[in-house]
């Protein structure tokens, strides 16, 4: 049998769609963890990235952070925190937030630092205060990259939250981990199919968000360079 037939056979059973371990509850859990972690990460990383991009201070640190971050093994971080902190919400929240910060920070920094110097000069020449320059010129121009950073951060949070089922977190990863534990490939495949669909839905959400927050004049240029 193929992956799809396993997944479909599991998904179409009515009992998967009800109760506290049903699919709707698990989807909401996963969206909750993802949304909360991403929100906290964004509140820290977006202002910090804009600040570093505007002042140019700490740029080297940001670039090095991004390089080091890629090598951190998620699974190791999760299990280490859970055996040192116990089964508290911090054990999953810390890794989820920490792993989402670097892409958001680097893209916000790159976006603001990459603003055309002539645009900056023009803004200053028009008599804008530094705060106005940031708010009215630098942030709108950097918006495509800021959204891209959030989107990349969301990819990692969704993936990490799935793996975090191994340390007891709810969400869609539960089906994968529980199914693997009892060798029930149908449940594992159903869970994986739902994770894939959720990851795609998150991408669609960010395509929509990009349309909403990126000014029309910048959207025309396509990919920023």
């Amino acid at each position, binding site marked *: *049998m*193929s*992956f799809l037939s*396993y997944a479909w056979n599991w998904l179409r059973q009515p009992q998967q769609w009800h109760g506290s371990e049903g699919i709707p509850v698990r989807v909401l859990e996963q969206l909750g963890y993802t949304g909360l972690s991403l929100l906290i990460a964004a509140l820290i990383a977006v202002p910090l990235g804009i600040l570093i991009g505007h002042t140019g201070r700490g740029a080297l640190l940001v*670039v090095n952070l*991004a*390089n*080091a*971050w*890629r*090598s*951190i*093994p*998620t*699974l*190791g*971080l999760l*299990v*280490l925190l*859970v*055996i*040192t902190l116990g089964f508290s919400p911090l054990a999953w929240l810390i890794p989820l937030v920490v*792993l989402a910060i*670097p*892409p958001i920070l*680097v*893209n916000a920094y*790159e*976006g603001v630092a*990459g603003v055309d110097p002539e645009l900056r000069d023009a803004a200053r020449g028009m008599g804008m205060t530094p705060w106005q320059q940031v708010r009215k010129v630098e942030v709108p121009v950097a918006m495509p*990259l800021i959204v*891209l950073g959030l989107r*990349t951060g969301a*990819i*990692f949070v*969704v*993936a*990490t939250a*799935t*793996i975090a089922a*191994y340390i007891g977190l709810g969400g869609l*990863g539960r089906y*994968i*981990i529980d199914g*693997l534990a009892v060798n029930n*490939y149908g449940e*594992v*495949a159903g*869970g*994986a*199919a739902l*994770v*894939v669909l959720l*990851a*795609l839905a*998150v*991408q669609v959400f960010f395509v929509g968000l990009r349309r909403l927050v990126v000014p029309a004049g910048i959207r025309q240029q396509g*990919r*920023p*360079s």
Partner: protein
Amino acid sequence: MTWSWIPQNAAMIRQLTLENAYLGIVPALLGLVISLPLGIACARWKWFYPPVLSAASVLYALPSLALFIVLIPYTGLTDTTVIIPLTLFSLCVLVPNVVDGMRSVPESVRQAATAMGFGALRRLVQVELPIAIPVVIAGLRVAVVSSISLASVGQLIGVSSLGYLFIDGYQRDFPTEIIVGGALIIALALVCDLVLVLARRALTPWQPPSRQREAAEIAARQQPAAAVPGGAR
């Protein structure tokens, strides 16, 4: 930390490190081999690039654990089940970098090569690809570092890597094992990264070190989408 655990288990640690290195390096190299023709084709026929880029960005959004599971009915609980998704992720990083590398060749250089009598193939191998090397290697560094780290997730479906130390350490409530596993993955990634930096210096002797840094920075700017991928998934 229980330091004595390390020498007592040196043979196992060495074995797991080798397996992890294999699962990390093979996908990056396969990704390079596939992305070169694909990227060159995308650079040459412009209409081909947007669909490839969209496919890559969709694929890149999928969690590795889910992709491993999709493959289990076809490739079983083998190395291949881990290597295929990691190769696909490497492609998502490498193809845009190959395209940008090819596009970074100045038109005047291309025309000069043609005027010197270079055919299309010779121009590609002797002029365009060497100029693209710094940008391609920048992508390869991202790919190999992420693959090494991601390979440990394969342990959840039973494919052996340093991830074994995470699972075993968790089940035995033994932090030393987890810390050793994490430190070795990061060290392995750093070593591969360093090797690639040295390879770039050796392959592009015409670039003075400061210019190389500049080239890498330009590459990062040109490719914000690929500037920070990899890592946890």
